[in-house]
């Protein structure tokens, strides 16, 4: 969990420099929780998305969700519903909204908001326990969100 530092440094670059064609976390347009427009302007890579969902250092989605397709990854949690079939239950825009900020789809959800940079109470510097500094960025980059969404769309039952 701790080695998210490197990822954060990378994030700082992408968010602060504002890559061309990228929607900043504070500019995302949510419609009933869903987000129509790609956040990065570049198509998502489902293979990369699969790795982000299973990786402790990136999305760590399996901490809370069981995913049958990720049987090679040990220890799936059971806080949220299994993600099997998510690509059938939700449209791509809805999935993008859920991953970027689930609280706009599920009120008070325990699911973290992966593309958000404001409104936190005592935000820290990753898992150090120290206060956030200017390396603070969203949990996932715009492109990582797109990759995750591209993967979730493939999850059919």
């Amino acid at each position, binding site marked *: 969990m701790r080695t998210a530092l490197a990822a954060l440094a990378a994030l700082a670059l992408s968010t602060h420099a504002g890559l061309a064609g990228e929607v900043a976390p504070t500019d995302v347009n949510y419609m009933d929780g869903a987000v129509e427009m790609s956040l990065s302007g570049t198509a998502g890579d489902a293979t990369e998305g699969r790795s982000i969902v299973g990786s402790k250092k990136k999305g760590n989605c399996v901490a809370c969700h069981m995913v049958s397709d990720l049987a090679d990854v*040990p*220890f799936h*949690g059971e806080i949220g519903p*299994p993600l099997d079939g998510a690509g059938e239950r939700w449209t791509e825009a809805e999935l993008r909204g859920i991953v970027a900020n689930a609280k706009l789809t599920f009120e008070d959800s325990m699911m973290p908001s992966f593309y958000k940079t404001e409104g936190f*109470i005592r*935000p820290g510097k990753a898992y150090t326990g*120290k206060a956030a500094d200017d390396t603070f960025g969203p949990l996932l980059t715009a492109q990582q969100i797109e990759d995750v969404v591209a993967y979730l769309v493939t999850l059919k039952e």
Partner: protein
Amino acid sequence: MQKIKTVLGTCAAMALTAGVAMAGPAEDKLILNEEIEMVTVTTAPDHMSDAMDTIYSGWHFRGVETRAMQSDDFDNPGMIAVEQAEDAWNTVDGSEGKSCASCHDGSDSMAGVKPVYPKWSEAAGEVRTLEHQINDCRENRMGAEKWKYTGGTMQGMVALIASVSRGMPVNVAIDGPAQSMWEQGKELYYTRTGQLELSCANCHEDNYGMMIRADHLSQGQINGFPVYRLKNTKLNSVHARFKGCVRDTRAETYKPGGQEFIALELYVTSRGNGLSVEGPSIRN
């Protein structure tokens, strides 16, 4: 009992966790040294009856071997620190030429103390944890140096004082002069901190019994502290544990020994009113 959800899809996840885990608290009884029957599950105290019906010691959420290890003092590695603290209890230290025993007699005179801490100190006009009270005796009555709040010597002493109350029910006062501190602790318990925006309640009230990745979530009770963790092979203080859980929400933590954690300790202890004092307990 609605909280002990038998979640669908659990089975698949369980299969992966090598058959150790199971949803909900394990059904088991803790009898210490074949003698003391410990209360590890009981009715929730009134102040939290709208949140849950039943409270469980963290012991119920650990594996068979860890549970067994705690039932016999010869197998409990935390008891080594207790023995060392017994020596410290009788050792003269500081400018006044006194040991704890000079004023308190044997360490068994501390029976009944741990269940009521953190406690309002009339003389000091504040809520104190055991650590604060011990350091007060060292500094102001013995003329000795303070012990580090979360350090091994201090936690050994806290474990010794806890150990002579094992089997007695936790019973901290939450009204009277301690009430405002208790309210503050409750507020902290329900505050969603850090970039992950998680409160203690998200994990330990709404989801106990569930797996979060490889961890079997307990109610986050502290009747078993100090806790000997197999993970770091030493006694862990309540505040160090709090600090770790706050850090894991990607938040800026509070300081061990500070006001916020004293308040949180008072509140969390009160959620365990009725459970037996277990310290030093064993967890992973």
